[in-house]
């Protein structure tokens, strides 16, 4: 139907004998410029759309990306909010970008034979994928033309639309893309949770190690110094000495009292003297021992104090680290995002694309305006030559 263009009215005999092809074209162009430059291309476009173009079926799905809690606005976010800008859901925008990315194409190719779908035998040569073994970039470009994801900032719904030459193919692509998005959401959640918890977990592990070390040091100290509590044992030793000294004083008093009334060899005196002597030796010994231990003991006490303080601190740190791990776990739970399917993908019954009438009208309009502009410009130039 394209073979006889509307502009090809004048025949060879009329234009003269053996005109040069270029001259003929020019003459025709000069005689019917509008028909040749506007109507003919429009006719060609219409012929393609109405006679050649293969129907393309569209499958559509809609989903929502929901978080349990919106993230606290950053400095920039706040600044934007003051200007009346409603911050859009970054997660939803991320999913939308993913759906149109080379990553999604590569993942799709893992599950579906994307190239075969875009090169079905019923596809027309212009609209189908032109290469049998397309490079990743070419396939990505083509994919972006056939598959679109739009995020509506007012409703927060992302609409996913896929076109192909068979309804089943479109459905398969949409379903697979939805599945991939869900997998991505899960992956994101996992990452979020891991990131939030990793720091808290490390903190708990460090506190635990510190507490174990402190406890170990105390035990070791006790084993080495053969004392449970050096401060206490020093006190006990002093108390002993005091008691002994008291007993000695009492014995001395008794001896003085006995010596006043009895002879020196009186058995009671002898007994008392013996006691005094025994006590004196013991006191001297004890005093020597305490004095000798004094230097080492004060050091011991200091060391022990340090170790017990360290143990207390480690205990407190572990308690707070455990609490913050709990909090982080709760936060991570709250930050989770979900993909909620609002509209399940459908199987098209009627080919919505290509929009033949609209496209033809659009081409006609654009060409007409361009023609009008060119005509006015050329006419203006000719005026100057006249």
């Amino acid at each position, binding site marked *: 139907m394209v073979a006889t263009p509307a502009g090809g009215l004048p025949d060879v005999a009329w234009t003269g004998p053996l005109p040069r092809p270029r001259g003929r074209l020019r003459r025709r162009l000069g005689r019917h410029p509008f028909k040749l430059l506007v109507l003919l291309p429009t006719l060609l476009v219409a012929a393609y759309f109405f006679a050649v173009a293969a129907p393309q079926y569209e499958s559509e799905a809609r989903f929502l990306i929901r978080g349990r809690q919106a993230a606290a606005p950053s400095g920039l976010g706040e600044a934007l909010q003051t200007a*009346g*800008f409603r911050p859009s859901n970054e997660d939803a925008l991320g999913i939308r970008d993913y759906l149109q990315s080379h990553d999604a194409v590569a993942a799709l190719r893992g599950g579906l034979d994307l190239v075969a779908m875009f090169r079905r035998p019923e596809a027309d040569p212009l609209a189908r994928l032109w290469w049998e073994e397309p490079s990743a970039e070419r396939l990505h470009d083509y994919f972006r033309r056939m598959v679109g994801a739009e995020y509506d900032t007012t409703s927060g719904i992302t609409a996913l639309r896929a076109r192909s030459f068979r309804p089943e193919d479109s459905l398969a692509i949409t379903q697979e893309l939805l599945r991939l998005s869900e997998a991505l959401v899960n992956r994101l959640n996992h990452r979020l949770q891991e990131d939030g918890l990793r720091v808290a977990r490390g903190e708990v592990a460090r506190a635990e190690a510190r507490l174990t070390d402190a406890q170990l040091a105390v035990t070791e100290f006790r084993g080495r110094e053969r004392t449970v509590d050096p401060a206490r044992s020093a006190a006990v030793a002093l108390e002993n000495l005091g008691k002994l000294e008291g007993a000695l004083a009492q014995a001395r008093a008794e001896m003085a009292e006995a010596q006043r009334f009895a002879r020196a060899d009186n058995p009671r005196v002898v007994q008392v003297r013996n006691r005094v002597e025994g006590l004196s030796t013991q006191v001297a010994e004890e005093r020597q021992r305490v004095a000798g231990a004094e230097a080492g003991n004060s050091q011991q006490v200091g060391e022990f104090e340090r170790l017990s303080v360290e143990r207390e601190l480690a205990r407190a740190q572990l308690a707070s680290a455990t609490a913050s791990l709990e909090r982080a776990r709760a936060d991570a739970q709250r930050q989770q995002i979900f993909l909620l399917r609002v509209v399940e993908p459908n199987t098209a019954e009627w080919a919505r694309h290509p929009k033949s009438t609209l496209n033809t009208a659009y081409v006609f309009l654009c060409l007409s305006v*361009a023609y009008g*502009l060119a005509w*006015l410009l050329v*006419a203006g130039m000719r*005026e*100057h030559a006249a």
Partner: protein
Amino acid sequence: MRAATGAPVLPGLRVQLRVVGALTLRELGTRFGRDNLGYIWLFLEPALLGGAIGLVHHLSGHALPGGVDVGTFWVIGYVPYYLLRGVLNRGPSAIAANQSLLYHRHVTLLDILLARNLLEGAATAGALLGFALFFGLVAGEWPREPAKIVLGMLLMLGFAHGAAMLLATGSVYSEIFDRVTHLFTYLSLPITGAFFMVFWLPTELQRAALWVPTVHVFELVRDGQYGTLVPTSYDVPYLLGWVAALNLLGMAGLRRARRDLAL
């Protein structure tokens, strides 16, 4: 007009270019004269205005949403707006001011408007180039994609030229265009998009703002200046549609006006 159909195109184009060039030179002379700074004023005028606005806002210290650099934002908004306003405001007076030239056979209304608007475009282009160099050298704020700024300015010139041709056409039939154009350009300043960015607006307003063709120009220019630092939204085909339609109507209007113009 059909009478000119047979005339050759290329020689005509050559003559037309010469005519436009001569008219541009004449316009330069009548507007700036030869005394004191002369033609330098051509670039100095938009540069001074844009620089003053940028400086005032830079000194006032108000931060802009999205962390946009204050000085460049106002200058980059003001210079294209200066082009739009300059071309539109001169549109209605173009024919009256140059009417005597129409006695020359080779001078057409389109030539007069082309000469004026190209001059205006050159002036703002020079000022913009100066600002780009200034901000690049002083603040290190080089345009990310200069080609987009150039495209934006060309589209703005095309848009303003088309609208100015319509205004000039109108001025042939009624004086009212000359009277209200200044008022209109002044009042339309807030909605042209010169001093706001689309992403600052709530979604509903964004949609409304993107109907205004000049908003696309400013967004395009800002995309060229800031790159991906700020989100921009524009539609070049939509803008091209406006430019084509306005120029078509404007040129057609001028042809009609030439016939009705009483010399």
